[in-house]
């Protein structure tokens, strides 16, 4: 009994490192299975730029970016530049918006999600390691594995699709800077959206 318990704890720690996410510091390690059953491990992605996007499809701020096609466009643009984009859903079982893996996969297809991986973080371990607060909350991890961006998708904290085209593209600009090897201006800013339902 004791052995099982110990190995469970050890297993849990192996999934996510305990470090908090700070700009310029090593991004918290994690590994998970995506909706297609593929293993995703941050340590295997060294040398590639990684984007983390927190999602919950019933959030009006998320709807703004999927309804306008902005998020899918950002995802496919990033994909064409060899960026690994991981969409993360941290809704706990029993919380509003929670979906079984198969239902989430259907919804992701319906929404036209173009990310590289879609990960169910039902126990919230990845979300808490990064202190993901809202959906959408965006993170960028550099090729060296350090956190390069933690913040909003853009500057207009509204739910209207019309605001997408006129907002400052905080996240897109940050990704462009990271890919160009430049320093990110405004690397940490307050994300807007709906609280993550841990």
């Amino acid at each position, binding site marked *: 009994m004791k052995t099982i318990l110990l190995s469970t704890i050890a297993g849990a720690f192996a999934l996510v490192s305990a470090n908090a996410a700070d700009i310029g510091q090593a991004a918290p390690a994690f590994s998970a299975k995506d909706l297609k059953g593929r293993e995703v491990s941050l340590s295997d992605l060294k040398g590639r730029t990684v984007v983390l996007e927190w999602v919950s499809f*019933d*959030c*009006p*701020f998320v709807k703004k970016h999927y309804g306008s096609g902005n998020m899918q466009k950002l995802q496919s643009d990033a994909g064409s530049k060899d960026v690994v984009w991981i969409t993360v859903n941290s809704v706990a079982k029993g919380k*509003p*918006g929670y979906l079984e893996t198969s239902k989430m996969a259907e919804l992701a297809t319906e929404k036209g999600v173009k990310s590289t991986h879609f990960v169910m973080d039902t126990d919230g371990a990845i979300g808490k390691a990064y202190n993901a*607060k*809202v959906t959408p909350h965006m993170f960028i991890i550099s090729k060296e594995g350090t956190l390069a961006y933690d*913040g909003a998708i853009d500057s207009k*904290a*509204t*739910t*209207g699709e019309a605001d997408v085209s006129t907002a400052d593209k905080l996240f897109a600009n940050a990704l462009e800077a990271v890919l160009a090897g430049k320093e990110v201006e405004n690397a*940490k*800013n*307050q994300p*807007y*959206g*709906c*609280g*993550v*339902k*841990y």
Partner: protein
Amino acid sequence: MITPTTLILASLCTVSLAAVHSGKASADWISSSRTTEAEMPVMTGIRLAVDEGYHTYWINPGEGGMKMSVKWDLPEGWVAGDPQYPVPKRFVTADLPGFGYEGTVVFPVNLTPPEDFSGVAVLKGKVTWLTCDDKGCIPGNADLELTLTEGAPAPAAEAKVIDAALRKIPLTPGNRISLKVVETPETLVLSVEGLAKTNVNLAEYEVFPATPEVIDAGAKIQFIDEGAKWTAEVPKSEYAPKKVSELTLVLAGKSDQAPISLTWKATGD
């Protein structure tokens, strides 16, 4: 749970003089007078009646949330002032600290007709807001209309509602009361001077940061009496700029004193 039907309903905008229900609130546009004359401002109010169990947001919504906003469509020459936001309350939604309103809230808006105003003016405003509870957030919007006719101003039925709303709008005191901010690595030291000879007891005031992303939205701001000034040390927002350059606080007394608004701006180096 959002069903497809509620989504469709929420996305429809109805032009109506009566209250429009959308998301989890009803909106209407009331006026202290139905008549006015050229260049004579009229105080009106955007009224939101939020469904029970939900709240909507202040000018600083805190972490998450969205403030109420209006896109105007006014006849030529008319000028709308910025909507004014009454003193909010604090709440925590899905672990995120926020500022806003439950129940009915009225946002006063001043409207000024042009110098050649005559006849009838139909004013339009598209109001958007967000209502949330612990389970989720639902946006609402309404295309509201207000008709004002040329004539001597006279109190309308809703004038009292607007008067009551104005008493919750923070006032800017004269220069003798000032806010100063000193930055430390993790905190801001706030001090208010100019109250020493008044009976204002800031320790009893509830204090709100109207400027977003400067003070940690979840931190209580408690002033203490240091004789010549009142001071409070508060944790910075993790999203605070590298150098804080501006801060507006709203201070609301527990009794019937008018709420006040104090602004500090960094002076050039």
